[in-house]
Structures are given as structure tokens and as C-alpha cells.
């Protein structure tokens, strides 16, 4: 199977406001396979967002390479194709809305690449159905809730034909219900339409739902693995400014006090079952 995204020795250096050279990414080797659901976690400034911006060529490598569907992001001729294949959804829903009607907002991307009217209508309808927003197609986006706005943004990437969606803290500004909606939508798209998902978040309870979790620290991948593997490393996560889920912390503390518990407890239900 071919990776959707492949980075080799990816390094990103920029000059900050005080004229210092800052290495935001430091030799990242990474493969993301088709149909994967990958969460990326890390402290502020660890390089998560910079990494995500390399996945659709919003940023270009200082050294090393990024290939999306085998296309090198440093080749200018590839940019349109890469950006159609990998859609991005950002933190602030209000910064991503361009039209006054939901369906026009979703149509904006595909219309710009010259999708014919008939096909355009079909794509918009399918995309809005996929995120459960078809009933709102004629609504004004600014009157929607945060979770609904983010789902419209996700529909926009689907209508463009993206088979890989990168979400950079999509729930940071949402209420608990909005957070649940976004996670549910992305899991559904991943399962039913085999959309590859790269999900950056500060909410560990969200990262727990991924197949693979990548932990970033100072521009490098600190460690990665299944949620069970990653979130069992309670004290290492804390040293990196992160936090394990409550059940994992409890299991960690109880083991220290001599309890014999199986490895890999990260959910409340797993902990309850192990203690029963």
C-alpha cells in the first residue's frame, strides 16, 4: 500500500521576530497510509501545526522532502493537485467561511477548479449529506453553531474531492456538543468513505479515538503508537506538557501502590472492568 503522505528528513527553519533562526521541524520521517486515522498531539510550539501545513504545501521544506500521493511539494506543478487531494480545516470556524449561504460556501472550492454545474450540485449535496448538514443547505453560515460551521468547512474539502483531511485543532473553540459532533463526523468519514484523517488536538480524549497517535516535541516525533501504547506513558506525557486520560493516570497511580492491573488501560470502562 502506498502512503498518502510521506516525509523524509523534513526540516523547517524560519527567522522569528527577534531575528533568531528557529528550527520548527527537525528531520521528520513519517508515513501516513491511505485510510488511516492519525492524531497528532504535542505542547504549544512543538511543531504540530507546522507539520500539518507541510502536508498540503502551505509550507515548503527547508531541507528534506514531503510527498503527497507520491507528488513532491517542492514541484510547483504539483501544488493544485496536492491541495485538491488534501483538504485543511483550521481552528477558527469563522475564518473559513466565504459565502452567505451554506451550499455556496461548500461549492466555492470545486467551482474555482471549474467543476461543471451538474457535477457541482451533486458534489455539494453529497458532501453536505456526509457531514449531516444537508438540511441546512440554504441557511446562513454565520447563524450556525461552532460545530455546524466546522462541519460545513469539512464538507468544503469533501466537495473538492479530498481523500485526506487535515484538521488543525478543529474543536479548540467549540462547546462539548460541538466537539462530539466533529469527532463523530470524522470517524464516520474515515470508516464509511475511507478518508485519511490527520487530527491535531490538545484534547487527549479525542486523540484516544485515533488508530495511531503521534507525539511531537521540539520539532521531532517524541514517540508514537496506538492510543493504548501512547497514553500508558503517563509520566513521559506530563514531562512534555501533555496529560494522559484520567483512567490511565489512575491505573498508573494504582500500580505504584501495588495494584496488579493489566497494561494499556486508558478508558474509564477498561479501568472499571480491571478493578471489578
Amino acid at each position, binding site marked *: 500500500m502506498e502512503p498518502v503522505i510521506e516525509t523524509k528528513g523534513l526540516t523547517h527553519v524560519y527567522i522569528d521576530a527577534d531575528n533568531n533562526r528557529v528550527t520548527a521541524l527537525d528531520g521528520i520521517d513519517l508515513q501516513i497510509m491511505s485510510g488511516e486515522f492519525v492524531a497528532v498531539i504535542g505542547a504549544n*510550539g512543538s511543531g504540530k501545526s507546522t507539520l500539518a501545513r507541510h502536508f498540503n504545501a502551505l509550507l515548503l521544506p527547508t531541507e528534506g522532502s514531503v510527498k503527497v500521493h507520491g507528488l513532491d511539494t517542492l514541484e510547483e506543478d504539483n501544488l493544485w493537485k496536492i491541495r485538491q487531494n488534501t483538504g485543511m480545516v483550521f481552528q477558527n470556524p469563522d475564518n473559513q467561511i466565504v459565502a452567505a449561504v451554506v451550499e455556496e460556501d461548500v461549492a466555492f472550492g470545486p467551482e474555482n477548479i471549474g467543476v461543471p454545474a451538474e457535477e457541482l450540485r451533486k458534489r455539494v449535496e453529497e458532501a453536505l449529506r456526509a457531514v449531516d448538514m444537508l438540511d441546512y443547505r440554504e441557511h446562513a453560515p454565520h447563524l450556525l453553531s461552532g460545530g455546524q460551521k466546522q462541519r460545513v468547512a469539512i464538507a468544503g474539502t469533501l466537495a473538492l474531492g479530498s481523500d485526506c483531511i487535515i484538521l488543525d485543532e478543529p474543536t479548540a473553540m467549540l462547546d462539548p456538543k*460541538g466537539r462530539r459532533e466533529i469527532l463523530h463526523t470524522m470517524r464516520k468519514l474515515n470508516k464509511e468513505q475511507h478518508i485519511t484523517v490527520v487530527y491535531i488536538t490538545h484534547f487527549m480524549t479525542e486523540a484516544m479515538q485515533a488508530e495511531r497517535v503521534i507525539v511531537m516535541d521540539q520539532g521531532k516525533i517524541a514517540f508514537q503508537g496506538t492510543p493504548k501504547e501512547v497514553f500508558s506513558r503517563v509520566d513521559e506525557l506530563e514531562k512534555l506538557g501533555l496529560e494522559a486520560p484520567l483512567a490511565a493516570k489512575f491505573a498508573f497511580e494504582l500500580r505504584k501502590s501495588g495494584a496488579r492491573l493489566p497494561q494499556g488501560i486508558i478508558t474509564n470502562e477498561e479501568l472499571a472492568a480491571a478493578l471489578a
Partner: protein
Amino acid sequence: MSIKLDHVSYTYMPGTPYEKEAVKDVSLEIQKGEFVAVIGHTGSGKSTLVQNLNGLLHPTQGTASLDGTDLSGKTGEAKQARGRIGMVFQYPEHQLFAETVYEDVAFGPRNLGLSSEEVEVRVREAMKFVGLDFDTYAPRSPFSLSGGQMRRAAIAGVVAMNPDYLILDEPSAGLDPGSRNNLFAEIMALYKKRGIGIIMVTHSMEEAAKYAKRMLVICKGQIILDGKPAEIFLKEKECLLNAGMDVPEVYKLADALRVKGMRLPYEITDAKLLLAEVKRRKGLK
């Protein structure tokens, strides 16, 4: 000393087809020294409500006052009253503008007409409060700081005004867990040392439970619940879920343990207590 809302309603764009009543007949009193969390889903009216609390918006009906002074007045007294209620907006780092951290924090106090010595004292104090070392950070560009530091610098600008009340609109949005804990350590130190009143809008049930002494749940422009966070999370789970909210993780863990037959006391509202209780039941030290 208290901020008081007396039958306050607020309507956006009254008399137009877009008319929307965002706050409906709310009466509320918040004392200096209280720490109040305000929760509610997007569009519930909580931001409109807190902007009525500091005179940024003037009630369409009813009055908002600080110690009896109407916050929507045009007198010098009203202006002074508004100045005693500081507001930290969402993503305050987007409002940083000056060339150095010092200049940014000094902007407010300087506008109060203080002397440059007094301004410097205010800046030093405010930076200390938010945990930014003066000698290291004062001369630096605010845009060279990390996300968490930028937010602290922005909060320092409001703290430097020496407000009696501080309104925080989602102070931890977008911060990693470590930065969140640091930020709250500083907010709590400020709260305790200066005895100010804090009103915090948040989407995080964990933060409301951990830091606030009182919690308001807003739904459709009205306060549907008002009480101690622990009591609301224990007794009103259904109501919270229906309002698009949630309960903190520790309540969920306690429920999961109960489902599997562990007999825990009803009132467990804190992770440390729960851990101690589980250890006791399992005969662990």
C-alpha cells in the same frame, strides 16, 4: 462591592428583520471575591451576558451597575466604574500590537495618565503576576513568544489596569495541558492575592469544576442553573447534556466504577478523593 444585573435583556439589531434577543430578563449579583464560571453552548448568550457585565454592551432593558453606578451612563463616574472591570477576550494574543512586551503591557496604565515611574511599577507587577520575567521578556517582541507566553503577556496588559473584577472569555482555548495548568496557577494567585472577582466563560467542564466556586449555566439567553459546580454536576447531568454541555471526567469515571459494582459515596467530585477511595476499597496504601 458587587456587579448587579437588574432584569437585563439585550436585543441585537432591534426593529430589523435580524432582531435577536440574546439575553432575556436576567437578574444577577456577583460579589467582589467570587470566582464564577459561565458555561453554555455556542449561541446561548453567555458572551452577550458578560459584555453587559462590564459595560461593553448596554442593556436594551433593565440596568447593569457596579456598586450602584449604572455602567451604561455617560458620566465620569460611570466611565471609572467600567474601568474597574477588566476584560480578557478570547485569543487575547491576537490583540497584541506593540513592538515590545513592555510597551504592550504599559499601553493601558499610560492611558490612565500615570507617570512613567508609576507605569513601570504597574508593568513589573503585572508581568510578575502572569509569570513573565521582566528582564527577559520586557524588551522582547511579543510576537517572538510562544502561544502560552503571548496569552500571558496579553493578560498582563489587563492586570496592569488593577481591575477589581476580571472577565475571562475562554482563557485556555488552544493551549496545551501544561500551559493551561500554568495559566490557571497564575490566575488563581492573582485571585487570591488581590481578592478580585473573576468571571470566566469556558467550554471546559474540568476547569469550571476545578477553579470556580459558583457556576452559571446559560441556555437561550437565560440562567437555567446557578450554584456550586460540584452540586450542579452531581444533580443536573441530564439538564447539562440537554444544554449541549458535559460533566467532568472524574464523574464519568466514578459512574463507570459504580456500574461495575464498586460502591462509592455519592458525593465524589474530585480526582484525588476518588483515587483515595478506590485505593481504600482495594486495600492499597
